[in-house]
């Protein structure tokens, strides 16, 4: 089918600020947004840059904004949006080039919450015993692919670069609620802060944006309860 695509372009060496570029061509009905970008890059304009790798919605490289919604380009068929597309980089991050944004701050926040199992007890010879119910408490939170779509959708994140943001807090949840972990106190101290879990105003934008449909806000609420309990 014939499609018309507007892409927000920015080449730091040439452009003072981002600008729209229009492309029009025909593509197969089943094409995904990533197929569209590949078609542009491989056939029409080699200078277009974007991130992609797995093309099966598991690596988190290709989050971007299409017609105002944050999606993974690789898993999103164009027919979901019709024949007119408007593609731009994730909001809230500085643009490196075209659809590629600077994710260093995003990954740095992750590191701040000590994202690893902290164990004080002696290690068993075999595995730690963990019940299925205990595993289910954290199960969904381990599905996060660090695509940053949630942060990009979060109005609490935009004005305040210091806010840990939904993904890092979700990761904190994932460890604090792991039955094997002994590091909750250290972590709660970090997140029980005005730039920590309390800056989440349960706006639910993150949940809507998350391609893995993770109920982030719910887990952040559980963290708030835990933080209060802990400080009593």
């Amino acid at each position, binding site marked *: 089918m014939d499609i018309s695509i507007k892409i927000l372009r920015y*080449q730091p060496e040439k452009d003072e600020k981002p600008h729209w570029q229009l492309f029009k061509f025909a593509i197969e009905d089943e094409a995904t947004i990533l197929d569209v970008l590949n078609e542009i890059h491989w056939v029409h304009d080699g200078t277009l840059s974007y991130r992609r790798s797995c093309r099966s919605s598991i*690596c988190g490289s290709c989050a971007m904004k299409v017609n105002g919604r944050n999606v993974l380009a690789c898993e999103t068929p164009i027919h979901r949006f019709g024949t007119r597309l408007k593609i731009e980089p994730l909001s809230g991050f500085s643009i490196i080039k075209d659809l590629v944004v600077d994710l260093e701050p995003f990954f740095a926040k992750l590191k701040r919450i000590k994202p*690893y199992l902290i164990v004080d007890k002696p290690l068993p010879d075999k595995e730690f015993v963990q019940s299925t119910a205990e595993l289910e408490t954290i199960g969904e939170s381990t599905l996060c692919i660090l695509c940053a779509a949630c942060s990009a959708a979060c109005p609490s994140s935009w004005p305040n670069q210091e806010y840990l943001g939904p993904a890092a807090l979700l990761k904190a949840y994932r460890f604090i609620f792991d039955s094997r972990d002994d590091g909750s106190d250290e972590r709660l101290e970090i997140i029980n802060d005005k730039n920590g879990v309390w800056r989440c105003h349960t706006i639910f934008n993150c949940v809507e944006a998350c391609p893995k449909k993770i109920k982030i806000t719910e887990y952040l609420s559980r963290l708030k309860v835990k933080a209060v309990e802990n400080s009593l």
Partner: protein
Amino acid sequence: MKIDEARNYHKIDAVIVGAGLAGLRAALEVAKSGLTAAVISKVYPTRSHSGGAQGGIAAALANAAEDSPQMHMFDTIKGSDYLADQDIIELFVNEAIKTVYEFEHMGVPFSRTEDGRINQRAFGGHSSPRACFAQDVTGHVLLHTLYEQCLKHNVFFFNEFQVLSLLLENDVARGLVAWDIRAGGLHIFHARAVLLATGGYGRAWKVTSNAHANTGDGVGLVLEAGLPLEDMEFVQFHPTGLYKHGILLSEAARGEGAYIVNDQGERFMKKYAASKMELAPRDIVSRSEQTEINEGRGIGGKDYVYLDLRHLGKEKILQRLPQIYDLALNYLKVDAVKEPVPIQPTAHYSMGGIPANARTEVIKDAKGTVVRGLYTAGEASCLSLHGANRLGCNSLQDAATFGRIAGIRMGECCRENAYSDLPAEPLAKAQAKIDRLKQAPGKEKHAPIREELQVNMTKYMGVFRNEGDMGKMKAIIKQLQERYRMVAIDDHGAAFNLDLIEALELENLLSFSEVIVEGALARKESRGAHFRTDFPKREDGQWLKHTLAWRRDGKIVLDFSKGVVIFPQYQPQERKY
């Protein structure tokens, strides 16, 4: 230029290329021992291909049924069609158990048995339920956990850096040169030990389950450095690739009872592997599918068959196989609850790669002469653990276990050796590659060349091979290599230049694909994943040996003097399922 004055110069004990399971596991080991470790990866670590693995990681924990390392060993040998080196397998099956418990102690959220132990499920070719798993996202959770452990132990990360050349002189590795993708610019990494953990080379095919990053850069670099590659002709095709896209629909679907049927609605596997049916090993199922397609029984006479899940019922499909359901719906608009899913064989796993010994040291000849300071692990390597055909779930384990061993050995190497001097013009080779692509007067573009390579590799170097087809492929590669010399890129900017990155990757694809074809042409037998219609039998008398291949003066030189390590108790037998 004087190196010491260069701004982009890094001196680090162990430099690791690749942030998949193999690279990260090695880096963790080095960093824990108190040395400095840097991981260089062209994608953010959590975006490495390892994260795409769904099914599981194999180890004989015996949590779900009786099992032992010996059983794991025999299954792996048989699966390999007897081409694997048995000393490597012996080391592997024992270490595998430790590797999984270590992962669990790091916090990997494995699915559990009723009594809270790591759960295990059945997988093709394994005689006991041996795959430790986390739902259908095993690779994802292993990769994230390892990355987080590396953060804890202060591994240095150079994310979005692409390695362009190895610094190697007199059989001693001295470091490498990488391109900073984000900002542009070359960096020199001066090291005492270098690990190549760059993953597989499945991107040489059009229909592939592999990520965009799997362009075989590691094998390309080794070939360019004048070192050999091993058994490159052995590439596994997975039977359930999503039609046209090649994206993997996990073996878990068949594990849950899905059927594969032809145009007549017949479960044709009964003709090819009556006892195992759809759960026969991958090479066998893929060949059966292709036979049906070639004989006109593909759906509507076309080049695909159906994976039918409908009889499993809506609830089971949505609960147990949600990823598969979503993939079929998103990519093909097929609702797997109501309709069968079009599938075809897809290039999946690279058994061949960079030859190394049990210590993960890269070797440069059939005698096993070591290149000091150069190591390899994971899918980029060929130890040879998987021989002619890898069993499912053995590769994550391969990457993690030999990644750990590589980390230990690199640590030893760093303690025993001072930094060796860098070659005189360390940047020259990498700089020349970039300059040429920016300055070439040519009119060629990289994308159509890559497309032609991939389409023809799928056509001529797939599940079935023969002399005529491969001869055509050889000629096509030669032409494409010629055209590559004339490639010019559109984008001359420094920041995140995807055009440049892809053009550089294409050079590797064109280089090692020639080795695949030459090896396959020379190997006049059928073994594991390498099947020749003109030589349909396995020939142990003549071909029970590894292929080594070099590029010398622009030509591929082959050597078959590297034998297979076979223990007396595991002599080759006919492989039947």
